[in-house]
């Protein structure tokens, strides 16, 4: 990793370290991964904005059914990710990020239409993406959506607000373990 050490100044690294949940070594490792997605472009300019198609080449994202939504959430400009966006993403998905940060971002990832509520259509989207090639029948889908709403929707408005989502998912012991990338 000798080459990437000289790309950032000490001050920049310090800054990144305080603003994210990664250590300096991990930040450099993340940069290495970012560079490997498009070596030529990143060498020329380290703040280059890579298009989303290149970002989804990353192994974890490539097989992830929610990759498009994740990229959309973390990209600050909407059409590509700079290194800082990428670092943000890796920071949230790292081991050091506390649960509430992960919950916040998980809500954004699962809220497909961006209206700050998880509605039936959002749920349906999630389930379809999760099951992949095998699709549930219409009746099963409706039953599943109903069951989930029954469990999580506390105020009976047929949508999950952030507060309800946070309340329910904080109780799930598997959430933190599943919502992370291994470095």
């Amino acid at each position, binding site marked *: 990793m000798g080459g990437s050490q000289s790309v950032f100044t000490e001050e920049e690294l310090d*800054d*990144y*370290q*305080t*603003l*994210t*949940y990664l*250590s*300096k070594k991990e930040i450099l490792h993340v940069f290495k991964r970012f560079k490997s997605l498009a070596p030529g472009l990143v060498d020329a300019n380290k703040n280059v904005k890579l298009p989303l198609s290149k970002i989804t080449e990353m192994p*974890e994202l*490539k*097989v*992830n*059914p929610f990759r498009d939504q994740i990229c959309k959430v973390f990209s600050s400009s909407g059409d590509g990710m700079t290194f*800082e*966006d990428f670092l*943000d993403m890796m920071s949230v*998905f790292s081991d050091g990020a*506390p649960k*509430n*940060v992960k919950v*916040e971002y*998980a809500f*954004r990832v699962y809220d497909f239409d*961006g*209206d*700050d*509520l998880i509605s039936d259509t959002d749920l349906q989207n*999630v389930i379809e993406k*999760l*099951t*992949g*090639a*095998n699709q*549930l029948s219409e009746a*099963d889908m409706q*039953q*599943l959506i109903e*069951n*989930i709403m029954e*469990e*999580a929707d*506390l*105020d*009976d*408005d047929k949508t999950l607000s*952030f*507060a309800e989502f946070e309340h*329910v998912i904080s*109780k*799930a*012991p598997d*959430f933190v*373990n*599943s*919502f*992370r*990338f*291994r*470095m």
Partner: protein
Amino acid sequence: MASENNLSTFQDNGVSRRLVAANAQYSLSDEEDNLTPNHHSGTQYMLSNGDIVTPVSQGMVIDEMEESIFDQSMVELRKELPSRQLDTLTESVTWTSMRKRATSIYHITMTSNQRQEDEIVESLEREIDLVDSSPQDIDEAVRTMPTTLSRKRSIKRKLSSRRKRKLTRTKLVKYWFAMLWQQTKYQLRKWRRIFDLWSSHLTVIEGCFGTSVASYFIFLKWVLLMNIPIFLLTFGFLVIPQILYRFHQLEPSGYAGNSESFTGIELLTGSGFFTNTEMYYGFYTDKAVEAVTNLEYKMKYAYLLTCGGYYLFCLILLGYSYLKSYRKYYIDAGGTISLYYFNLVYCGWDYGIKSHEASVLKQSSIYQEIKEYLAGKNVNQRRNKSHQAFCNKWAFIILAWAVVVSLLAASGYITYTVSNKLSIKTALDNSTSIPVVSPLAMPVVLSSIQLFVPMIFTFLETSENYSQPKYELYVHMFRDMALKATMLAVLVYFWFKIAASKLECWETFVGEEIYRLVIVDLIFTLGYSFFMEFCRKLFSLKWRSIERAEFATGRHTLELVYSQSLCWLGLFYSPLLPVVVILKLIIIFYIKRFSVVQNCRPSLKPWRASRTHTIFVGYLFIFFILSCVAVGFGIFLVKPSTACGPYKNYDTSYQVMTDLIDKWKADNHIVKEIFSFISSPGFISGLLVFLGMVLYYTRTVMLSHRERVEQFKMQLASEGKDKKFLLNLLNQVRVRGRRVSKHPGPTLHKTMEAISPAQKAGGKVFVKSVAEGALIAPSNI
């Protein structure tokens, strides 16, 4: 009705506007409403006549002159909300420190704009001025803000520049210490990476197979790391002094006195050359080691105290780990609602998966699980239990358990016989024994029993037909561990009763036996890997019908628990055993890691990693306690051998300590007084009473916390009803609003007065009464 019409009614009718503004302003939590504006700017509400209404955020203009009436009516309205009816909860707004604030999330929508963030920054700045917060708190608060890195950086700059307060000298010192502490924390975090051994391997495994298989390897790593301090303790306090003794005081010094020479077979049997070395208890001296003149190191006391030391260390580590696991997976997740479906969908995807095959499999497994759950719900309702089937089922279960118990008894008997007939012969001088086979017979028999009997258990379980697969897994694990525990108990009994009376240096014999058990266990594990996994892969390449093996995580983890409990059992009799176990674990890790990636396929079955981790640590803890009890039995009750070891000529090993205490008592009057006081009945009973009180107090606190949690849950549910209540009110007033004059305040007042007495019950009843009141109210005006 056209929507513009609604809008115009909106703007005309001040009340509806107030209510809309009120609805937009009040979020679910009350304490923050002076500090955190609600960001639900995009929510839409549907009125009862089907119109969609978008409340505008509080950027709306509210007339100045109606401000005071507005505030007052809002206060009254708030008092009437269903959620406020729970009087038992205190309503004081507590000022949380900056750090606590940092842990509460500022929920910013995806379409957040600069204005909202400026508001948050303003609130943060206000807090900085009011509360004395250090740079770390600010950093922490900024770090948790769910926004992009560049915005965080600008916010941090803004906040840091605001802190231009006059720093007194004490504050400077305090901040200097805080920065120092921060630096050390970062350094520690860097150094902790050293303990991240094998992280690259773990990443590969997790990428291919997911968290279930990775949990086995993580458990292995944890057990290995636990063994390292034990090794250091025994090495530092026992082995090194003994080596010094060997070279300085033993006649003849060095290795010359050893009657046997080193042939390779010792690695397998543990006896021969190793018998008279630091490996076993028998070699340790009971004299004092004097490597440096006039400094005496009494081996007797060192041996016992080190033993106590490492057991205590393990106890603390295990207890802490178990409690942490239990708390995380049972208490935090506990609650009256079961969350199967939600967890399945939202925690189902493992983000660490990297390979395409694993992701396809994960998707199919989630699909299967969903179908199973949905089907299971219906099947359970439809099952009708006939009396006959019920009796049959229970008769079969009792039969199965009887078979299990008889199998356990049989294995115990076999173990005892083999030990009696074969193992002990090697140590007795005047008997014939086959060189390698006799000592190894018992471990081989033991391991074979552990390999084959669980297959019988599995067969029994499939016939028992449990309602849920997880019960089958738990019962199987219990039976497996009971088998291991039975055989170990029989062995311990044999060693302490029979071997101790017949053999001259029985502790060394016990140490050797355990060494052999460990080695044979290693051989069997490698053999299993080879035959079950590698050969199956070869066969699957040749014949399509045979599939590659799945990695049996549960079985392997229980094997780890067994091998670690052997280590604990043998520590007292063989101080160098941790070395063997550490090497064994390293070998197993590498073999299994390469075997799993090359030979196994990912499993389709879902694996509840969280729950099973608690169970594994629980079993480890139980076996630790059992080993401690067994070794304690040996120390306190069994007579040490007279020919070898640090405790020859004593009645029990523990006698050394009692003699020491008696000596202290004889030498020193004060010590005698202290000891007689401590061992007096009054002191002990006082101590017990005190402990009982502490226990009672913590239990009461726990119960009260639980009650509080229940109350908060009720509060949450009723806060949800607030929204419905306000919507209903909005609806009613809007419907009637067209007939009402332009003064919003009195209408609301009158509405409130009309509902008298205000009902204290929350929920639908209350909403209904308010709605009815709203219907009646206009007629009073």
